């Protein structure tokens, strides 16, 4: 007996959506979209709210309506925050440039060439991809110490680039798979070397994909916490780590942490807003 009931309930549900006028359906989808947006936007709203409250009022948001910009003033007056913002920006930008340079050539090789070298490279990337990200951290700490690059740009850049190569070479291969190789053959006949054909024909055709990847890469590095926490110290402060340092033995300075987070959100927001259409276009390829 239960089966027909289930079937009829399903029919009833399907009938409910079908019975709605197209306008009604649109309203329903609209409401669902708004609900989802609110769900994701609420923490950000709360973050901004906290960043604008005086320290003593953070826990009592329902009391009083004091709002202040002092938190931002305090945070931006700290040298370490400014230094961390600069470092994070530099690391994210340099890691993006380096990663793109390597992943573009690596993805191109995986897409276009067959033989022992691409096969070995493919297997290597695959193996490293299978290793959990967290388990890289401790060995990397010792390696950077040994190489004398701990707490320097290189000490953070190289691990980031290594991770990006493993994850983004595959995406890059997909972009190049979508580009007709006869365009490069035509270029080679038209007077280009193999490298010239890659650089002058395949790369421009991959620009939507490259832009998407650059944005993802930049945001990923900007937001990254674990590597920054383990592989840097006082010499090269990174914004995500500095943010976390407002939780200390004397208590938690939520207002300052929130203000720093809002400041750190700015560049990420700009990059996202600027790049979202490229990301969507690039990932559609």
């Amino acid at each position, binding site marked *: 007996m239960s089966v027909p009931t289930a079937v009829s309930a399903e029919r009833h549900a399907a009938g409910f959506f079908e019975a709605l006028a197209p306008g009604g359906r649109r309203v329903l989808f609209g409401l669902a979209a708004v609900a989802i947006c609110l769900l994701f936007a609420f923490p950000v709203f709360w973050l901004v709210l906290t960043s604008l409250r005086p320290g003593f009022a953070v826990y009592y948001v329902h009391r009083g309506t004091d709002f202040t910009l002092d938190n931002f003033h305090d945070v931006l007056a700290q040298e370490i925050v400014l230094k961390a913002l600069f470092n994070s920006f530099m690391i994210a930008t340099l890691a993006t440039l380096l990663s793109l340079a390597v992943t573009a050539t690596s993805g191109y090789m995986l897409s276009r060439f067959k033989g022992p070298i691409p096969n070995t490279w493919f297997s290597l990337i695959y193996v490293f991809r299978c290793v959990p990200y967290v388990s890289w951290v401790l060995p990397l700490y010792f390696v950077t110490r040994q190489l004398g690059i701990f707490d320097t740009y290189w000490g953070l850049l190289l691990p980031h680039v290594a991770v990006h190569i493993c994850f983004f070479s595959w995406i890059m291969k997909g972009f190049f798979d979508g580009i*007709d190789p*006869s*365009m490069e*053959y*035509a*270029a*080679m*006949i*038209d*007077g*280009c*070397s193999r490298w010239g054909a890659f650089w002058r*024909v395949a790369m*421009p*055709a991959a*620009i939507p994909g490259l832009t998407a990847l650059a944005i993802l890469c930049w945001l990923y590095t900007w937001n990254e916490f674990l590597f920054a926490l383990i592989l840097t110290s006082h010499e090269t402060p990174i914004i995500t780590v500095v943010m976390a340092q407002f939780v200390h033995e004397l208590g938690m300075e939520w207002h300052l942490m929130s203000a720093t987070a809002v400041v750190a959100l700015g560049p990420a927001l700009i990059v996202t807003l600027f790049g979202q259409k490229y990301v969507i276009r690039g990932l559609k390829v």
Partner: protein
Amino acid sequence: MAEVVLDEVQKSYGRVTAVQDFSLSIGDREFVVLVGPSGCGKSTTLRMIAGLEDIGAGTISIGGRVVNELQPKDRDIAMVFQNYALYQHMSVRDNLAFGLRNRRVPEPQIDAAIAQAARILSIEPLLDRRPRQLSGGQQQRVALGRCIVRNPQVFLFDEPLSNLDAQLRAQMRLELKELRQRVPTTSVFVTHDQVEAMTLGDRIVVMKDGLVQQVGTPLALYRRPANRFVAGFIGSPAMNFMDGRLTMEDDRLIMTGDGFSLSLPPTILGDAAPTGQHALCMGIRPQHLRLGGPSGPGQLGLGGTLMVTEQLGDEQIVAIRVGDKDVRIAGVDPDLRLAPGTGLEVSAGVENLHFFDADTGERLRATT
């Protein structure tokens, strides 16, 4: 302008042989078509001439210069690809100029070359557009333009018409012929379409499984196919084949097969007539069969049952069943009403018969 000579060229991928012992001399300004089913090695051969594939063994020379070790850019060739291969991020004008700029040709000369090519191909209004704004036919014309601006020694065409619809393909075929007259250049054209091969080529190279089956003019291939494969591949509708055995009876050769028995002149196969148990295959083109019994001594008759008719407007193609084989007859009056199941007699002149060895498929008699 140059000759292209391929000498014992081979190519293998692992254990698979793609091209075997390919030897061919293409004359200056000659238009040669490589034709065959997919996987026959025709595109691989073309790509070896272009330098896009390494040559396994043998030599290829262009204009008297061995090009085995030369980069594609140094071979002075131009190539048109199946999917046009236009540079999507450049305008049509830049697509045409790309090869010339790479060769550091002065800009005024480039402009003149582009203007001339655009005029020949009627693409002047398209010069400032991007390739993706063009139709398939227009893109193919731009791809042709990219070749002719360079004025290379050799044109290579890799199935350039197969992405176009039937009507456009026929039109582009004509345009290609016209282009040949205006810009006569040594050309190698690869296609799987025998109509393109017949209409465009000065000579045709038929390939199968990496081996050259026959090289000749379109008419020679049509009239004297070297083997059963070429006979079946060239010509539309395809040649009818009937298997049987020959016996000698009272000074006549009798060919007997499933559902037919034909009396042939004793000299038809010369000394090559393999009588007895030797199986052979007889081929007749649908165009050489006509409805009705034999009208003279040089005619042979076949009887069968009408299976289907295909109306083409200017003619009908009729298929009759003889034994277990369908035999097609082309050029039947389109107004003739024929009911399936009717018994029909058809005839052909003995001079139009082709004979092939049933085992090797080799031709047994040279028909004029």
